[in-house]
């Protein structure tokens, strides 16, 4: 078990290194110029050179890369070109903000999706519930996340006025963790969270439904039925066994689902990592964009690792070696 985790950690480090390297070279090889805005305002050549030096963009690509990796190993992501301060200081609060919608959104989306998926999978084959469940889930799955956001904003913010239309809280000064405990924060959290849930839900639902349909004809389900336990309990056995593929799917799919969160952050003006990444890219703020990307990749890798471990908890047949 221990050896297994260590080996998987080592693998994860390799993967993160590879992703970091790809990102580094992408940013360096591409033509965009981070000094462009200053150039338009009349930056002189010497000053530009000084600036590039300050930003660590002079010297051979290889030297830059080595320096970058060295700094990274010491936990130094460099300084943001735009904010002129360490990237970590900029990103840390934003990560927390992103996790606030990502984690509950993912968990609730998976849980609700799994619950409905079980019901749909357990329903009569070809029956109304099954068919409408599948149809609706497939259609909702096809709704782009920004359309979900737009629809929620239009209905619940502009028209009904139940929820605020943007941001994470009314401008105020509660700082630190305390602000996350206010009603105002919850009020702002609702719509983006619902959007994330709706985004995750259908895929989980369909997956769970497939699993339940596959499992419901298994012999052990028959035996459970024969035991005379309540129907819900029988369905639970099918669901419990279908969770395994769900978990294996759910975590790797994070790579795709982080994407959904980026767009939702933008639509709802949620100050998170994804939104900052998009802004940083448009400003040619390499260090910030690279670090944001790095963090997203690390999140995915860790989630994969977590998935393996959770899988072991859920499926007694799994042995780590």
């Amino acid at each position, binding site marked *: 078990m221990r050896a297994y985790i260590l080996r998987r950690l080592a693998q994860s480090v390799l993967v993160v290194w590879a992703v970091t390297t790809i990102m580094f070279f*992408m940013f360096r090889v591409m033509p965009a110029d981070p000094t462009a805005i200053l150039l338009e305002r009349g930056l002189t050549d010497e000053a530009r050179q000084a600036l590039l030096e300050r930003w660590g963009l002079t010297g051979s690509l290889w030297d830059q890369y080595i320096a970058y990796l060295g700094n990274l190993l010491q936990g130094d992501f460099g300084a943001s070109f735009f904010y002129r301060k360490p990237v970590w200081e900029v990103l840390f609060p934003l990560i927390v903000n992103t996790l606030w919608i990502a984690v509950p959104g993912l968990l609730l989306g998976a849980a609700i999706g799994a619950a409905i998926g079980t019901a749909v999978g357990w329903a009569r084959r070809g029956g109304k519930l099954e068919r409408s469940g599948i149809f609706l889930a497939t*259609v909702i799955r096809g709704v782009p996340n920004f359309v979900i956001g737009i629809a929620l904003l239009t209905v619940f913010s502009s028209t009904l006025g139940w929820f605020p239309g943007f941001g994470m809280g009314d401008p105020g000064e509660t700082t630190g963790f305390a602000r996350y405990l206010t009603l105002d924060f919850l009020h702002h959290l609702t719509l983006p969270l619902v959007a994330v849930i709706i985004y995750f839900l259908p895929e989980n639902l369909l997956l769970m439904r*497939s699993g339940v349909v596959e499992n419901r004809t298994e012999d052990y389900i028959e035996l459970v039925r024969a035991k005379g336990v309540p129907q819900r309990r029988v369905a639970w056995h099918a669901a419990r066994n279908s969770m395994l593929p769900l978990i294996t799917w759910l975590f790797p799919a994070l790579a795709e689902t982080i994407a959904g969160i980026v767009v939702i952050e933008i639509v709802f003006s949620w100050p998170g990592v994804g939104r900052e990444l998009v802004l940083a890219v448009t400003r040619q703020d390499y260090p910030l964009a690279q670090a944001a990307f790095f963090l*997203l990749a690390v999140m995915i890798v860790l989630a994969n690792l977590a998935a393996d471990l959770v899988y072991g908890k859920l499926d007694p047949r799994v042995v780590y070696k």
Partner: protein
Amino acid sequence: MTVAPDPAPVPGPVSSSGATPITIRGRSPWAAAWDSLRLMMRDSFALIGVVVLSVFVVLAVLAPWLAPYDPFQAMMTEAGRLNRLSPPTAANPFGTTGFGQDVLSQFLYGFRVALMVGLVAAVAVGFISTLFGVLSGYFGGLVDDVLMRITDVALSIPTLPFAIVAVALLGPSIENIILVITILFWRNGARIIRSAVLTEKERVYVKWARAAGASHFHIIMRHILPNVFRVVFLWITMSVAFAILTEASLSFLGLGDPKAISWGQMLNTAFSSGNLRTAWWWVVPPSVALVLLVSSLYLIGRAYEEQTNPRLRRR
């Protein structure tokens, strides 16, 4: 992580549709493709998808003739002012944008972009995924190792952020968007197709064919490919949907091709000009079209999914 070997006997190969008996000669990939297509169409949801998709293709082809105006042309009022944000009228059945352009015309041209992105991405992703999936699944060895290492890394790359970075750096254009989509999605496809090939190549008839001295090419074309077609089709359908969604998302974020009008871009223009919540006639058509298109692809994909998984099929 490994699953402890189950002492239960390994279940025999799941018989395929049963319609075509498998002989040592195998069957033509085209016939297999056709079979799979027919089987998919038997699913009523998939049929809805196919119908919607066909309508969309027709609209895309006819867009230049159907569109009443040039999509970029500014509508003027009689007083010589720009006819901005006009709700639907006889002259502009879908109203006008915040820039006085005809929404209907833009909407119609949007079909072309969406379907072009989908089509090119499908061909590119489908071809590359199948190529690598089959090669790595069938031959194994170095190709397989390299592919698996690449996908390990690639699966940890957050897709949209990567697309945002890549398109922003390469410059926003349809070509670059398709390139990035291809880079992003071939890996999943290759992995899925590879595992299907791995199952296929263990089949008895493949072993017979090999024992009978059939060439690798023959075996791949006549035995492997026809039997993984459902997986390939499933993956192609899904990647068309992903491609369209990715293009829409990128365009919505302002990274769309400025030379072409896509639905994502229409929404972005409405969004960035602050008209999102008022100009419903500008927002609803592209949103609905996107939802219809992607959903119908998913409906088709679902039918293939049921096909590829015999345990999901109704008995």
